[in-house]
């Protein structure tokens, strides 16, 4: 069963932005994420994973199909609703997808405290499972 685990750009509201973290905290957070990545790879559960650049590097494109496409630098939703990255996993069950999401959510932030980031667990649409 395939799932997308989606992580938004910022941590829980009110928390420190990542560019203000202590170097050791950044390192610890990276190590926790890497450990999850390694485990998913070793299990053959990882289909893909990417980090996305922040709002500063993002563009919004709209096109009415007639004139020239309109390209703007925003405005973007609040950073807590701005997609920061995803894991595309193929796992045994929804429980396993939730377990991975929970560990990702609990990755350490400033001072080594679990971040409790919101991770969306989204089933990927697949082939029919019914016998017509």
């Amino acid at each position, binding site marked *: *069963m*395939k799932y997308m685990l989606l992580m938004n750009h910022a941590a829980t509201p009110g928390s420190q932005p990542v560019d203000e973290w202590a170097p050791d905290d950044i390192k610890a957070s990276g190590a926790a994420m890497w450990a999850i990545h390694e485990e998913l*790879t*070793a*299990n*053959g*559960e*990882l*289909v*893909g994973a990417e980090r996305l650049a922040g709002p500063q590097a993002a563009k919004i494109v709209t096109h009415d199909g007639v004139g020239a496409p309109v390209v703007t630098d925003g405005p973007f939703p609040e950073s807590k609703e701005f997609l920061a990255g995803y894991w595309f996993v*193929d796992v*045994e069950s929804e429980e396993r997808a939730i377990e991975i999401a929970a560990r990702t959510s609990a990755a350490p932030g400033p001072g080594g405290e679990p971040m409790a980031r919101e991770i969306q667990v989204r*089933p*990927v*649409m*697949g*082939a*029919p*499972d*019914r*016998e*017509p």
Partner: protein
Amino acid sequence: VTQPSSVEEQLRELAPLVLGAVARLYGDFDDAEDAVQEALLAAATQWPAEGPPENPRGWLIAVAARRMTDRLRGEEARRRREVVAASREPADGPPPVPDRDDSLVLLFLCCHPALTPASAIPLTLRAVGGLTTAEIARAFLVPEATMAQRISRAKQRIKASGAPFVMPAGGEWAERLRSVLHVLYLLFTEGYAASTGAQVARSELSAEAIRLTRMVHASVPDDAEIAGLLALMLLGEARRPARTGPDGELVPLAEQDRSLWDRALIEEGVALVSAALPRGAVGEYQLQAAIAAVHDEAETADATDWPQILALYGLLDRMTGNPMVTLNRSVALAMVDGPAAGLALLEGLDDRLAGHYRLDAVRAHLLEMDGDRDGAIARYRTAAGRTTSTAERDYLLTRAARL
């Protein structure tokens, strides 16, 4: 000139025989499986160009054995344990080829209960089915590296379980056979729904499931459940050409063009299940096959013998206690005693299938039969929101829109 497809078929037939021999020679299933995979890849490139060797099986065993020797030498160099490795090296020249077919032993090992079906399926496809990692990865729409890792992890788990490379005996045999049949059934259903585009590779999964189940049936022809599973697959496969419309949309059983059904497969499936049922020890695959046979033998949807289907679902429900069976029984009950009776049976499923789209889909269907247009539309929409299948969602939304 040898056709590429025939080389491919030949390799798939030979794969389990070769792996059985190499695993026996070296007493190491894990490494032998990698070595045979390499030998199959070598054959797939060399044979079409140079023609197949005189003794294809011996050729594959020799190439795989050479890989095993290289592997052992590599380990030896690394570990400097010359004495141990040298004693395990086969003499130069073709190794002795044991004259036996270990395909079934391999299949039982790959479907070991220590594995989840999701890891047993790809391992079975590679070790017993002779598919390449790339082919398996394509069928499951994941990167090749991911699939390779999954297979390697499955082999490690078998190794850790300590399962020997022998056929289980006595009571264990029956229990292990259940795992084998379950894995083959799931492999079949993986490919069952596939029809278009990227899903074409998946329909090969059904074909492979049928091929492997034929192999098991040929080895153990008297087992009624094996025959039942094969019949179930054939009777389902027979409907494949009618199951999807020109744009890949689902066509429900009642609306399928039955002239597209594969008569030869239906005849074979009906004959298998008819021969299996009177043998006693009726199992769930035989019952499911019997239900599929009743559907497949009806000239038109209206001619379906619903009372018989209802009776069979009754038996199956008692045997399995599976709420999905009760769900299907409610449809049969509605066809025999009217939609109200079917809807009443669904009442008991609300807890056990809470949130499952099929409960909403069946309820919608029965409400539609009952003339409750608004109720049916609402349920079709709920079901469409809950399914993770695109084709299913489109089908359910179309049903709702039509009302």
